[in-house]
């Protein structure tokens, strides 16, 4: 299998961040600034890093420009100032210095091609990378059982449930073998029960493949359960990201959400979010129309 696997750091207190700190970060976002229209800034000097094999969540309120961060990292947009650096050793596909083709991007909607059966959908990424079809199909077939997709090869997306479609979408991203994956609220459209199943399932798959994941969500529990670190954005435009290390041992399961560490970290996050809200509450009147504009801008993508 071509998926890059990193030595899993020993599960110490810092859940791997310390052990990996010696390597250069896989993804480095440095003082990135962006706005869709001049004068309406969404991101103002945002910086963060992701180490190989790390699971990091970005927790921010809806409509605050989270998806824009992903579009910037994936190379669909260019920052107005600052930089995005990806160290995967793979060249970009869209010309020199392009980030297109370097990260696995799993969008909010499953984005399956309705006219392709599951198997053909899952090979799309490999196909676009120029992998011979037979080889691509073989690789996908191998991975389907561990994604809970055995027996669905010939089904069309409209015959699958929302959760199953997200599994296909995730398989399609994982099979490309990118060392870093961006997951944009992949479970937000699912009902609560399915979501819990999918979170546990994602953890089990990630334990197996261990690529770096940057996960966007506005669900606090989801972020805490899944991540090594949670980056919390409290203000709009997004400036500073507050980092919280989730030092729960792995492998984790949904049962961990009633543990002490979880409760303590959750309190910290909620306090941060609350503080962010009350501080932006002072300027609420002036920022309200700006927010409406921002969510429009996001809707374009």
């Amino acid at each position, binding site marked *: 299998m071509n998926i890059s696997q990193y030595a899993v750091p020993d599960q110490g207190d810092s859940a791997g961040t310390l052990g990996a700190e010696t390597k250069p970060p896989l993804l480095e976002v440095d003082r990135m600034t962006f706005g869709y229209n001049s004068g309406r800034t969404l991101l103002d000097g945002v910086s963060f890093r992701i180490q190989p094999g790390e699971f990091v969540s970005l927790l921010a309120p809806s409509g605050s420009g989270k998806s824009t961060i992903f*579009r910037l990292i*994936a*190379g*669909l947009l260019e920052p107005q100032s600052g930089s995005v650096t990806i160290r995967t050793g793979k060249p*970009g*596909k*869209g010309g020199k210095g392009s980030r*297109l*083709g*370097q*990260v696995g*991007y799993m*969008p909010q*909607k*499953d*984005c*399956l*091609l*309705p*006219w*392709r059966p599951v198997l053909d959908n899952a090979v*799309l*990424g490999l*196909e*676009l*990378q120029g992998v011979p079809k037979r080889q691509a199909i073989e690789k996908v077939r191998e991975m389907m059982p561990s994604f809970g997709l055995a027996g669905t090869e010939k089904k*069309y*997306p*409209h015959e699958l449930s929302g959760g199953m*479609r997200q599994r296909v979408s995730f398989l399609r991203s994982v099979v*490309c073998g990118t060392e870093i994956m961006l997951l944009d609220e992949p479970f937000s459209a699912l009902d609560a029960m399915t979501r819990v199943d999918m979170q546990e399932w994602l953890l089990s798959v990630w334990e197996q493949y261990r690529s770096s994941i940057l996960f966007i969500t506005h669900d606090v529990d989801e972020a805490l359960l899944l991540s090594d670190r949670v980056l919390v954005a409290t203000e709009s435009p997004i400036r500073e990201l507050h980092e919280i290390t989730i030092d729960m041992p792995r492998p984790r399961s949904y049962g961990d959400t009633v543990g002490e560490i979880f409760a303590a970290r959750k309190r910290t996050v909620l306090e941060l979010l609350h503080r962010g809200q009350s501080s932006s509450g002072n300027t609420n009147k002036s920022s309200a129309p700006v927010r409406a504009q921002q969510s429009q801008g996001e809707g374009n*993508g």
Partner: protein
Amino acid sequence: MIRRYVPGVLLVLVLALLWEYGVQWFSVPHYIIPKLSSVVTALWDNRSSLTHHFGVTLGEALLGLFLSVVTGCALAIWMHMSKLAQRLVYPLLVASQTIPVIALSPILVMWFGYEMGSKIAIAVLFCFFPIAVGASDGFKAVNRDILELMQTMGGSKSAIFFKLYVPSALPSFFSGLKVAATFSVAGATIGEWLGAESGLGVFSKRASGMMRADSVFAAVILLSVMGIILFLFVKWLESVLVKPNKI
């Protein structure tokens, strides 16, 4: 399956009986509306020449349809690739449809002659528009989220065109093609009316000159059968090529 067709078949039978006996009941002159039975007789009596004329018209319609698909798709692709072409050509395309093709037809006959060329040209004039617009609108119906995803996967322009744009455009293209398939017969026939040596249009024109309404109706029935065949052919092609397009 059989039950589905029973009402339709019954309706056709009732209409046929009404035609056959209504005409006799109201004593309509045979040169205005002939009895259905005499139309059938005319079909049978002229079977060898009708077969020949049918083949000629079908050939013109098919060639016209084929050329329309080629040129219509080429134009749609050009408009898809170039914003400028889109802005320049689309309004012209719409404007071209406000010209009554029949008024333009004599000029086409002068340009392309009395042979097959002018018939095909007129068929193309009829068919080109629904095909070009269908394909062009189909390209615009592409899902932006999937497009961006394929870009982040490092998909090349041509790969994205063939794997995303073309399948997305197929349903809309086929809607246009179905309309065009029936238009092609009308186009070829009008071309023949303006002057030709063979074809169902010529046959019916000669027959009407001789007050042979039964032969005119025989030709009209064959033309409509031809339109239906072409339509069903396109529909079959669609069912083969177009996979589910919505989730």
